[in-house]
């Protein structure tokens, strides 16, 4: 009897618990080893670059790095008047050093975001410094009038920090006054907030459209005999395998004012030749093209959920006296909610990230905020602002995802 109280051991005398733990640890380690290439790849190709990019939305090293002496000299400035000679002397030294190293460009761009005209203030002044003699104050102000303005110096002092909220404020149409108060940008510069709203409500509309169109198709797919449903499935997937650009430009050919649809309508006498409908290069174009492109992402999760609903449930409801609509509404429909939610979140998240399709068919009124991210990445090169807008979008997506996960559970997202 006393034997049973002794801990169980393996053949070589190691307690069973320890041995088990070892074995589990070993297999865990092996599993980790197996996925480590993927993990490493994701870290290097995905997580790190995204964080590196997003960190630009607050990074503000330009003034600190390129105007160190000026910043130091400004420390005991009273902010009442344009600073005196010592500050200008420091500025000249900083600019000369920057001109020598040829790296004033980033500083010039940075300050130009805060105040138009600073780019040439810095570049032109730096070029003319070689021939300038002390005292510098007068000469520098003469070289460019911006240096004689109080706000210029307030901005330089304000931006002498390694992090700035400026890009985020600009992304929501706010700005910092030279004294550091947050104010609304002038009306004629208001643009991003409207675009955010438009992106969200139009994505919502697109999601709704895909749901309305996709639900009956998914139902057919799930209830038809295999022979027919396979054919239907191929029809659903065929556009999925076609290039995005091809699908988008096809819509241009169909919807434009000299396009197929208008031609047919004119031919049938529905509309007059002079009164052709404008269905592309506006919101209609964006909604139609994106609904079509994103439709499979709604149909597939719906289908995978509907497949798992046994037909006998509906039969049972009918045999208990339910009318067709009532039994659908009370039995079938609630069971498809996880599929609708999964398809909805997929389509919604994908559509707020789209930018090629809105750029091609959206015209001015059908543009998304993502088109401005692309613009600031490629054309204006204001990567800080692009990162700020992108991280706001990312935050919205994460919030949606968490709400979804709380309500439905992310394991419900299946594509077949």
């Amino acid at each position, binding site marked *: 009897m006393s034997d049973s109280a002794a801990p169980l051991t393996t053949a070589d005398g190691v307690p069973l618990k320890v041995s088990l733990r070892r074995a589990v640890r070993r297999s865990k380690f092996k599993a980790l080893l197996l996925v480590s290439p993927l993990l490493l790849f994701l870290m290097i190709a995905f997580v790190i670059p995204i964080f590196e990019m997003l960190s630009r939305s607050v990074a503000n090293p330009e003034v600190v790095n390129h105007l160190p002496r000026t910043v130091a000299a400004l420390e005991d400035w009273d902010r009442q008047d344009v600073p005196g000679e010592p500050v200008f002397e420091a500025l000249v030294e900083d600019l000369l050093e920057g001109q020598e190293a040829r790296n004033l460009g980033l500083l010039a761009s940075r300050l130009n975001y805060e105040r*138009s005209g*600073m*780019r*040439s203030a810095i*570049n032109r002044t730096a070029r003319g410094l070689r021939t300038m003699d002390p005292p510098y104050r007068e000469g520098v102000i003469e070289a460019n009038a911006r240096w004689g303005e109080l706000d210029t110096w307030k901005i330089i002092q304000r931006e002498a920090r390694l992090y700035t909220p400026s890009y985020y404020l600009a992304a929501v149409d706010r700005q910092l006054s030279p004294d550091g108060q947050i104010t609304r940008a002038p009306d004629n510069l208001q643009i991003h907030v409207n675009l955010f709203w438009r992106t969200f409500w139009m994505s919502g509309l697109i999601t709704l459209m895909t749901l309305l169109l996709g639900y009956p198709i998914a139902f057919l797919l799930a209830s038809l005999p295999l022979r027919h449903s396979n054919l239907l499935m191929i029809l659903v997937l065929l556009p999925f395998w076609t290039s995005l650009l091809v699908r988008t430009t096809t819509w241009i050919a169909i919807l434009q004012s000299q396009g197929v649809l208008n031609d047919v309508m004119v031919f049938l006498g529905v509309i007059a030749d002079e009164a052709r409908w404008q269905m592309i290069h506006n919101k209609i174009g964006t909604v139609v093209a994106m609904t079509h492109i994103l439709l499979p992402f709604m149909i597939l999760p719906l289908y995978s959920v509907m497949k798992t609903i046994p037909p006998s449930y509906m039969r049972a409801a009918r045999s208990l006296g339910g009318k067709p609509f009532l039994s659908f509404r009370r039995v079938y429909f609630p069971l498809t909610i996880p599929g609708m939610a999964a398809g909805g979140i997929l389509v919604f998240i994908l559509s707020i990230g789209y930018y090629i399709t809105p750029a091609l068919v959206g015209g001015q009124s059908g543009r998304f905020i993502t088109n401005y991210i692309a613009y600031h990445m490629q054309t*204006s*090169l*204001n990567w800080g602002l692009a990162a700020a807008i992108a991280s706001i979008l990312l935050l919205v997506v994460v919030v949606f995802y968490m709400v979804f996960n709380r309500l439905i559970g992310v394991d419900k997202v299946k594509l077949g």
Partner: protein
Amino acid sequence: MKSIIRKRVVKGTGVAVAGLSALAVAVAAHAEGQTLNIVSWGGAYSMSQERAYHEPWMEMTGDEIVNIDQSANALAGLRSQSQAGNVTWDLVDMLPADAMIACAEGLIEPLDHDELLADAPDGTPPSEDFVDGALGECFVASIVYSNIVAFNSDMFPEDAQPSTIEDVFDLENYPGQRALMRRPINNLEWALIADGVDRDDVYDMLETEEGIQRAFDKLDTIKDSVIWWEEGAQPPQLLADQEVAFASAYNGRIFDAMVSENQPFEIIWDAQVFELDGWVVPTGKLDKVRDYLYFATDTQRLADQAQYISYGPARLSSSDLVSTHAESGIEMETHMPTYEPNFATAIQKDDEFWADYLDELSQRFDAWLAQ
């Protein structure tokens, strides 16, 4: 969007061209058969460069030249290549405004023009032979091109053809849609001139709030009749389809449609906004492209390019050598932005102004469009 990279590689035979002694020396010292990645704008413009510079150069040296159509995003490309520490472009064709920014960021090499470039045939040094503004700290221009407004002459009665920039803003006498480029550059200048501002005062006006407001107010008068274009190929197409009566465009594209497609287009040279375009060398690539740059910017090469496209050569000494269009045999002189009667009311695009104000005015322009 997926970028289109057109690669055209022709192996040269290494035949030396007689009569170019200075060149022969340069070529003799030149390493055989390297590959040059040259970034340019694509389309008819890249074609003219290929004919005038690339093909003779490849034949002479055995080098391979790879054309990359990325000039529209050249600044972004240079910056990201430099940050990644792997610059693959050897020579880039870009606008002087972008060159100024790239130069200030140290992305491209400062150039000593008199040392690097060929003298004119009569011995004039480059610094005197190039037109004003053609030689920047890091930039050497090869062409002068122009932003103009063109119209389809079929759309107006013969005795009432438009001729000035005011006419473009005159919906009453010249009805029809207008196609303008979706950006503030040029449009604001034209709006002010059409509103009666002297062309010398345009940029001073645009530095003031009243001036900007005045320009937008003028644009407001035609806003409902404007189609905004973004790709250079759109305006000739829109004009040809008679979707619009007027279209702003690059003069070379309109010339091309007039000559090779016999389109009934006319150019309004009044208030043309001209601009230079040319080469920059990414940092660290100067030794590799030194010889090519010397060759591609000499007097004869710039004159040759004008046989293929109606952009004016940036060297004074090239102007006399400009002859006829290579395919149609049309006399090129009268189609050049720099031709005296065309040039009378021209404005030079102020790069420094736009370097300072483009960010702010683009945002304001977009907000105005969205209203």
